[in-house]
């Protein structure tokens, strides 16, 4: 089993390497460490979001509201900062995480207590949260000149040669890794995905675990809200519009099974990095950015086909899946 996971991630890492090598053959400057670090930094937010989405998908759920949550929390942070520039940024970040977690908990409660399918719940909250951004801001933008210097500069700071934004991604990845591999909760995420009925008999509260997965994805969305706004220094209703599908795409490319129970931190990270590398490589090799969307679509399809071949070896489980495709 473990070897199966390993080969999948190695395969993906090789694909990323191949893209980098191919581009570098024609444009040697692409593989310079500085450029690769830039790509990593550009992808940091997507990596964190993909990890949150992975936790949810592992439990056979899906969170379509992450990007809207990000936009709402980011707008709230930007407006607080514009109104009270004196509030220290770490405090503001803490607020973002809590607010995001609360929005995620709202999804989670509906899934847990009312047993509404996650796709329906988050389809609803996706439009609600996005609409609330407009209500909160009155449709106005928060621009760079309204944000405090710290608000913008914090994540651009440098620590051991890496931007702070990259460190955020590394720390979140570390925490999620520990959560997934070293805690009962992490094991519960996987257990529910593989077999919810058996999980109940082993004493796992399925609804509560799904709730916690939504809280996690919400908290990460909230953190990403601050990081996104301070990175692109504009808060508007349109922030990260449609990004929820990019997040899911990163997970799928990273080998996270939409049927639940399969997926690793490394996979989700690599899936995000793959999208980041491709998006950064396109302008370098002179392909119009309008190709981006079609290429990531093709990458998703290719990834699903390859993942499905990997999962077929799981024998009986695939039978269950065939009857349970939602």
């Amino acid at each position, binding site marked *: 089993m473990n070897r199966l996971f390993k080969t999948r991630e190695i395969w993906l890492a090789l694909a990323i390497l191949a893209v980098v090598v191919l581009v570098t053959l024609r444009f040697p400057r692409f593989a310079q460490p500085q450029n690769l670090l830039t790509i990593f930094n550009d992808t940091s937010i997507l990596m964190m979001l993909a990890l949150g989405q992975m936790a949810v998908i592992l439990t056979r759920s899906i969170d379509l509201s992450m990007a809207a949550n990000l936009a709402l929390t980011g707008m709230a942070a930007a407006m607080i900062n514009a109104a009270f520039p004196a509030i220290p940024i770490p405090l503001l970040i803490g607020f973002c995480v809590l607010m995001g977690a609360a929005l995620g908990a709202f999804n989670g409660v509906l899934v847990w207590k009312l047993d509404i399918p996650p796709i329906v719940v988050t389809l609803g909250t996706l439009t609600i949260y996005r609409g609330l951004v407009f209500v909160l801001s009155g449709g106005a933008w928060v621009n760079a000149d309204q944000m405090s210097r710290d608000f913008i500069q914090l994540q651009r700071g440098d620590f051991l040669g890496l931007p702070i934004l990259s460190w955020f991604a590394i720390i979140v990845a570390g925490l999620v890794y520990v959560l997934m591999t070293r805690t009962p909760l992490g094991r519960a995420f996987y257990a529910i995905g593989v077999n919810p009925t058996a999980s109940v008999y082993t004493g796992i509260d399925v609804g509560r675990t799904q709730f916690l997965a939504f809280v996690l994805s919400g908290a990460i969305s909230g953190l990403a809200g601050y990081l996104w706004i301070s990175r692109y220094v504009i808060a508007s209703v349109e922030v990260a519009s449609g990004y929820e599908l990019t997040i899911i795409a990163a997970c799928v490319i990273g080998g996270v099974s939409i049927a639940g129970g399969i997926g690793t931190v490394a996979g989700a990270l690599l899936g995000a990095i793959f999208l980041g590398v491709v998006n950064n490589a396109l302008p370098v090799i002179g392909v119009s950015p309008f190709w981006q969307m079609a290429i990531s*679509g093709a990458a998703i399809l290719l990834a699903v086909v390859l993942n499905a071949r990997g999962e077929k070896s799981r024998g009986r489980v695939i039978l269950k899946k065939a009857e349970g495709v939602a």
Partner: protein
Amino acid sequence: MTDTSLHRSLPDRLDNPVKSTLLSWESLLVLVAVAIFVANSFASPYFLNAWSLSDLTFNFTEKALIALAMALLIVAGEIDLSVASIIALASTLMGLALQYGADTPALVLVGIGVGIACGAFNGFLVTGLKLPSIVVTIGTMSLFRGIAFIVLGDQSFKGYPPSFSWFGQGYVYWVISFELVLFLVCAIIYWVLLHRTNFGRRVFAIGNNAVAAQFSGVRVDRIKFVLFCLTGLMSGVAAVLLTARLGSTRPSIAQGWELESITMVVLGGVSILGGAGSITGVVLAALIMGLVTFGLGLLNVPGIVMSIFIGALLIVVIALPILWTMWKERRP
């Protein structure tokens, strides 16, 4: 509890008095629709007017056409998130055909043909390669719209002939638009298809238990493939109507429509887990969404705020019956 297999292991639904439950769901929708209608007519003096009400229908007919086919697909336990992207691709290729001098019948053929082809592609990936439809259609959603972006970039196609525009702007009789007539005809066709044919019964069978259906001789994969083609076809039709109505094509056309169509289906009482639902409910849900957006529009509520109402409506309408049952179970 949230285990979907528990849902599937329920005793055969065909013997249950499902009909009464469905009836109550639909009557709830009728109540909601009437309430919103009355509220609208009080809220704005411009609402109760034949032309206003006619304009109202343009708000939902195109999305609702897709929702009809989507309902069957969801009843069968699958989903198609790529419908809006199919519109974008079909519209783009229609525009491209226009550049090569295609006339109106050819444009319509291109639109519908692209729709069916895209649906068939989805259907092949899901049934031929045994992939989960939600991921496949997230992929094709990017792919189809991505191709539209490759063709168009930041440009747009314009200059559709007036005979083509009629599909989106023309009236059959007085205030009755072509779009509305087409929607009503399709609604009847889909109602008959789902509720009065063997095909429809097989769709329900697949949604309740695909494996059991397979063993009872239902060609599960073939029916699912047909359903994906139908959804593609309706998206193609919607592309023709929308392109004709707007008179131009941009790659960002119909952005976010997949979610609105699915909201209509779910609001209409179709179980997202498959196996239950009715076309009547979907038509009512489409009407409700049209009423909400149009009424709020008359009150100058911006579109983005309307989406809050739509989202809340979706959750509340689904949560209320559940809360009601929980409350009733707790009482005795």
